[in-house]
Structures are given as C-alpha cells and as structure tokens.
C-alpha cells in the first residue's frame, strides 16, 4: 500500500462536544490514511468513537460536536473546513456514505429508480436515459433480482436486506472514490451479510474504491479489511495490517478484544474477558485510557498518554513498545 498516494488522510483529528458541564473530547489525536482500493476497518466498543470518526469525515457531525483540531485531507485537499454546501457536493460525488439503517438514507416518497437517476444526473455528466440504464445495472450488481422491473418500486416495497442493497447502490452509483460505511451489515442476517460484504470487496478490488468500514463485527473485518484501526475511548489504540491485528495484536486492548470473541470452531469452558468497562467520555483516566483495565499496566501508563509507537508489525499506542528508554 506504499506505492500509491493516500486518498484520505486524517491528521490529529480532535472532536469536541461542548456541554454545560464542560467540554467532552470525543475523538483525540486520531490519525490514519486510506489509499485507493484499500479497505480500512475501524473496530472498537460502542462509544469508542468509530462512528464519530466516519461522521467527521463526511461532514455530518451531530451538533454541538465540532472538529477542534487536526485536519482531514481528501485527495490532498482539506475538507474539514468546507462549508455545508461544498461538503454536500463532495459527499454525493466523491465520498459515498452507507449507514446502518437504510431507512434514513432513502426517501420514502420517491421510487428507488428516481433516487438513483437523480443522484447520477447530479454528479455525473450523463442524461436521464443513460442514468436509468446504469441504475438498472447498479441494482443488478448489488444483487437485486429482476432489477428492470423493481427499479420503479418504492423503498417500502423492498425487504430489509434488499433495501440495504439499494442504499449501497445509491452510495456507489455516483462512483465515489471513497466510501464511508458505518455498520453496513449489522442490521442484516448472516446470509445476506455475506452477499453484501462480497459486493463491497469486489468494488474495492475492481474499481479501486477506497473504503472505511466501521463495524463491531470482527468477523466482517477479518474477511474484508486490508488494514484495521482499533479504537478505544476516542483514540486509535492500534493500527496495522488485518492479519497482524487479528492474529498477533500488540496493544493489550486489541489482544483482549480479539481473545474475547467466542470461537466458532471449538468450545471453551471460560471465554477470555476484559474486566470492567470502557470509561465514559466525562471520566477518561489520566495517562493511557486503558490503564485501569490493562493486565500489563505499569507506572508510566498511569501518568503519560502514549502516542502510536512502532510495535513491529503494527503501530500501537502503548508504552510497552517504547524503545526510547532502552535507546537513551
């Protein structure tokens, strides 16, 4: 992934929520890149900030949330400081978004065909006739049977799985170069989930679309992502190639997270578990946010916050991999 310039660069992103009881820091110092054709998986517990990272990239942070520091570059240009209208244009054309609930994306009053055609004629230099032809193509591509007939159906006439595929077609039809997918398969049954994942993978491979895939389902990540970012309490705890993070994680949190997944191929008497719970945004401990739950905690962890450090195969925000002590 080193030979291509990254399409998306997130640099030291910090998102704050001003509340009456002080400012909550929802994301802090989040940095990562995504190259064309690459799928970056973002995992972590609910509240870790994975969805918010996605929302910040597509410019849809819920108020009063705001980007307080850092920058987001798309194709080398900053997009975090654009006005709503400018960002809206980019969101339709260059960055596609897929959300967990398909009903929030589809307009119930228009047929899916009309929504697809309008999206394409707005963003691509094609007329309605051509757009309709392509719309049918997209619906076929996402696996909707009899697409030519169903194109004139309304969203409610599709089942949940079909609707999610329509959403995906809608996100893809303007041929965006980046897709931000937030739990795109969580609402789907395993059998449908597999179909959708297969489709997204094909797109990344064949069209060179970059993708940020936010999910809590490690299985989906394992089979789809090229690289994985593990988030904890608003920060990136570890980032690296999928095989390494899933199989040989370095950060104690990633290790615990992967170990707590119930195995499918055998029965164990007692599952590995991480005791305690992720801290609330209003009570993030000093030092490393994971230190109260970490089995390998030592003094430094309780005082200083680690940045991402080279940990061999991955980069981990953990003092265990700090070599400066040894060097100096």
């Amino acid at each position, binding site marked *: 992934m080193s030979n291509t310039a990254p399409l998306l660069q997130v640099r030291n992103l910090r998102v704050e929520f001003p509340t009456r009881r002080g400012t909550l820091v929802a994301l802090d110092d989040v940095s990562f890149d995504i190259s064309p054709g690459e799928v970056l998986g973002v995992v972590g517990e609910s509240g870790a900030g994975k969805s918010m990272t996605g929302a910040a990239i597509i410019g849809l942070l819920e108020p009063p949330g705001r980007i307080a520091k850092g920058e987001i570059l798309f194709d080398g240009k900053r997009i975090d400081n654009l006005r709503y209208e400018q960002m809206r244009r980019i969101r339709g054309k260059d960055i596609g978004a897929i959300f967990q609930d398909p009903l929030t994306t589809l307009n119930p009053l228009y047929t899916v065909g009309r929504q697809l055609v309008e999206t394409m004629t707005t963003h691509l230099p094609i007329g309605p006739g051509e757009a309709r032809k392509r719309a049918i193509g997209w619906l076929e591509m996402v696996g909707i049977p009899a697409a030519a007939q169903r194109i004139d159906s309304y969203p409610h006439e599709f089942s949940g799985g079909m609707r999610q595929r329509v959403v995906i077609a809608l996100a893809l039809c303007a041929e965006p170069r980046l897709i931000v997918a937030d739990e795109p398969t969580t609402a789907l049954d395993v059998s449908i989930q597999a*179909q959708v994942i297969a489709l997204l993978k094909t797109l990344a491979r064949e069209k060179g679309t970059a993708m940020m895939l936010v999910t809590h389902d*490690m299985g989906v990540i394992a089979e789809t992502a090229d690289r994985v970012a593990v988030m904890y309490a608003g920060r990136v705890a570890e980032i690296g190639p999928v095989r390494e993070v899933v199989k040989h994680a370095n950060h104690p949190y990633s290790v615990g997270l*992967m170990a707590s997944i119930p195995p499918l191929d055998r029965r164990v*008497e007692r*599952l590995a578990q991480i005791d305690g719970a992720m801290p609330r945004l209003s009570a993030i401990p000093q030092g490393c946010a994971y230190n109260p739950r970490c089995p390998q905690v030592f003094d430094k962890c309780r005082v200083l916050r680690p940045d991402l450090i080279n940990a061999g195969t991955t980069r981990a925000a953990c003092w265990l991999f700090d070599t400066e002590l040894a060097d100096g």
Partner: protein
Amino acid sequence: MADATPMFEARDLARHFDVSRPLLQRLVAREGRRILRAVDGVSFAIPKGTTLSLVGESGCGKSTVARLSVGLYGPSAGSVTFDGRDLAEARAMADQRRRMQMIFQDPYASLNPRWRVADIIAEPIRAFGLMKTRAEQENRVAELLTQVGLSPLDGQKFPHEFSGGQRQRISIARALSSNPEFLVCDEPTSALDVSVQAQILNLMKELQQRLGLTYLFISHNLAVVRQVSDRIGVMYLGRLAELAPAEALFRTPRHPYTRALMEAIPDLDMTGRERIPVGGEVPSPITPPPGCSFHPRCPLANDRCKRERPELKVAGDALVACHAVEEGRDDAMPMPAIARAAA
C-alpha cells in the same frame, strides 16, 4: 439428569398472529385474513440443569418461542409443560411461576428507567412475598448484586448510570432474585460489545453451575451458541430444521440450511476466505412456500421437497427435517469448512 421429567417441554407448539388489515380496508381491497405463522409446530424438551439453544435468522420464530415458554404469549396450538405441569396451570400458581424467569435482549429497555436498581431487583421478591422484612430484602439485593459482579452500593443508583453490560448484570440479578430454576434468555448478549459479551456469557455459565439452572437460550450467533449449549435447535420459518447435541451439530451439520448457515458466518481464522452466501432471502412467514419452506434456497431440493413438508426424523445423533437427508441425497452438499476443520 437423574430426574426423568424434563424441566421444559414443547409439543407441536404453534403461535399464529393475525396481521390482517382492519376489516374495512380488507373489504375494499377484497383480501382475506393474513395469518403470520411465527411458530408452526415445534417440539423439544430441556432436561434439568442443561441448556438448549435455538438459533436462526431474524423472523424464524425463536423469540416467539421464548415468549411462549414463559407465558407472555399463549400457544395457538400444541402444548407446553413446565416440570410436568401444563404451563398455563403452572403460571396460575405463584410458587411455580417463581421458578421461571426471563432475561431480555435490550439492556436499555429491560429496566424501568424511573426505578432504583434495588427496587428493580427486589420486584420479584416483593411480588412473590419471598422476604418478610425490609432488612431481609435489602440483604438479599446486596447479595444478588455481589453475585453478578456489581457493588451493593449500586442499588441506590438509577439504570441510566450504568453501561450496557452492567445493566445486563442487573437484569440477571432481577431474574435470579426469585430463586428460579428455569431461565429463558432471549438474545442476552447480542446488544453488547464483544468484550462485555464474554463477561456476561462467563457469568451465565458460572451461575448455571453454581445454582443448577436450566436455560432456554435464544441467539442468532452460532459461535455464542456453541459456547453455552448442550443441545441446539436450528429454526427456519417457524419450524425446527435440525435439533442436535451441540458438538454433533458442529461436527456433522446435516440439514442443508444448517450447513449453509455455518458456511455463511465470517470467522477470524479465515481472513481472506471467501464465504459462500446462502442465495436468496428468508421468505415471508405470511406466505411460506409449500412443502419444505427452505426449498427455494436449497441446492438439494427436488419435487418432493416442493410438495411435502418434512418432519423431524432421527439421523445419527440428531433430529433432522429434510427429505434429502432421509433419502441419503445430502452428500451432494459439502460439509462447511468449520465442520471439516473439526473432523
């Protein structure tokens, strides 16, 4: 399993819901009644002290079975017995009702937001009049909180002060407060993060060993089910496709649907593996296909499958409702990778 009477038994259990539109609209549109057969003839028994799990995709009827088995719904047909007594009869007696409890899926909806945790946990104690004095009650609540890994001081807080996993612990404490023997767990961990899921599953296993509980466990997650079950029932469109001891099911899944389901699950060990999706979608339970309801998606379907509904029949350690398995045609469908890996 010295006691031969199962804790719980369902025989040809069915539950139909009338989902017709209002009479006037029906007359205008000239359509008949629409009956949703959520559960359509399910039989199984749970021996005391063991766990039976029901797995399946959404809409297969597993949650309806859970609700039927604690009497939240009445059966449309068939019978349910609780420790040898008809369920309705058992539920009419407080000392029998006390013996069954339920744990729900959504930790945010299963605790009354206006009640303090201590009152939530004590509700069954009060409802059944198990403790006479207030002091006794408070002691018991403190003991239960400790048992599920919370602090006795947490009793004075309100549910919104807890995380999802902690709330699920409170739910478990409430369920345990009437000293039940049979717990119905409806997707107890599917709303939780995986690290928390492990905590809750471990807790439930621990409690089962310590208190000798019998579980009916409902889940859509095969990996979770493998960890907790003694026996597993795979449901499809309101019926059992396969019912087998847990290890046998994973070693030799027999029903084509079970195999397809296992093949469709992503697995950590399989980075880069292509899963084989089950083609098509679950049909509507209002208009299920004739014959075997899985036949439109089944690679082994033939004419008989389209006409005749298969019944559960013994096949090895398992009970399987499939003509292809009965006729020995199932070799045409390969075993899923998980089962191959085990063998």
